[in-house]
């Protein structure tokens, strides 16, 4: 009987130590690192009020941290990675007419708070910096999945939002209606940690 009690006590102590260790581990866990290969940033503009014109940024980097069950984002997009499948148009988008990639090589988003608004949906508040101008931005981030496999732990998020590029000093073609002021942006992130 005494041996059984001793064994139960030892098991209890062992379990609590394991649990404490796990808690420490979860507190110390590294943030997820965005995988640029499987992350995408797509934008859409209305061209001359006719067709919808799409482009993408190929280099999306950053981190996603989960703090108390809520995501925190620090995302960076390299402007030079803009890709419209037309070299000359890419050059124009990089020029001071639009993004001015020489002076402002990155577009960044850093979240400051998040709240759960539904099943795997979060309202994320943060600041976007584009073309040297920083503005507050609130987006709805949908968690697209979280798995653990041979690559480690992976997590995915996706959001769609719109921006007025003139708010960021990018006015070329707005007045003439050549390219819409309103730009739809889709950002899909995949991030992992080992």
């Amino acid at each position: 009987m005494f041996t059984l009690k001793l064994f139960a006590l030892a098991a209890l102590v062992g379990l609590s130590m394991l649990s404490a260790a796990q808690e420490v581990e979860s507190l110390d866990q590294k943030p997820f690192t965005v995988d640029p290969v499987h992350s995408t940033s797509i934008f859409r503009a209305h061209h001359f009020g006719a067709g919808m014109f799409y482009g993408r940024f190929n280099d999306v980097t950053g981190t996603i941290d989960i703090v108390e069950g809520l995501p925190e984002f620090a995302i960076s997009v390299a402007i030079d990675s803009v890709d419209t499948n037309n070299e000359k148009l890419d050059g124009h988008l990089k020029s001071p007419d639009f993004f001015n990639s020489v002076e402002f090589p990155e577009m960044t988003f850093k979240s400051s708070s998040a709240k759960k608004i539904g099943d795997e949906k979060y309202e994320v508040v943060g600041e976007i910096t584009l073309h040297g101008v920083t503005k507050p931005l609130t987006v709805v981030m949908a968690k697209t999945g979280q798995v653990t496999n041979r690559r480690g732990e992976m997590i995915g998020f996706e959001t769609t939002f719109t921006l007025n590029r003139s708010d960021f000093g990018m006015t070329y073609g707005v007045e003439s209606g050549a390219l819409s002021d309103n730009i739809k942006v889709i950002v899909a992130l995949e991030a992992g940690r080992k």
Partner: protein
Amino acid sequence: MNPVEVLQFVGLPVLIATGIVLLSWHFFSSKRIQPLGVIIAVGVSSIVAFALQEGLPSVPPTEKWHWLVLTVLIVFLLACLYPLFRAWDRLIVLQAIIAGIITAGCMQFPGQSGFFDRVSILLLVLFVSVGLRRLTLPPWHMYLAAWSVLAGLSILALQASFAKLAFFAGAMSAVSAAMFVLQLLKPRETKSVQVLFGVLIVGCAMCGAAYDPSRAVPLLAWFLPMVGISIAAIAYFLCKPKFQAVVSIATLEFCILFSVIWTFVQATPQDEMWP
């Protein structure tokens, strides 16, 4: 880019510059202050041409190339003073050096590496301004040269996908063309305006080169029209008086055409896609 935009971005500055010169014919009749008409016309129209593209820049500007218009503004205000003081009239080189120091101090470019770049800008403004002044012996000659060089830079900027700079340089080229015509219609004293053209030409070329990291336009092509002015000025003095104007302008046009053709030849052909 459509005809309405061209009319707005190019036509308005030309209209303003022409209006100022026509008014100056009436109000600045004294030979002493005659040069003020063109100086004010070029100065005001360059600020208007820039504002039509980017609005008036903040101080300090949010983008480095916006320093171009602030530099033009300072040199313009200074150029307005020169004709008022007899002693300054003949100090062409000193006027150019002052404009060069202002440009070298004010202008900002991405990738600017300090002292060497600033000295280069000073020397370029000096050579271009003095070169243009040397071409004024028939007075319309300078306007023709400025017209060609700025038109060439406008084409290069378009090739570098920098439409706002292309419109700005194009507008100033058209203003120079208007000054050329007005000078032919009613020849007037022409002084000190060369420093304004010098800053405009050097500023546009330097901005074009600095914001073209993919080298859609070869680096040397940006500089050749500026160098062409100095070569044209030298050619002017080497020729017999009968051929001076033709030879110097032909030399300059050759340099500009060479830059433009070289740019087109080395460009990757691709469909037009201006938004």
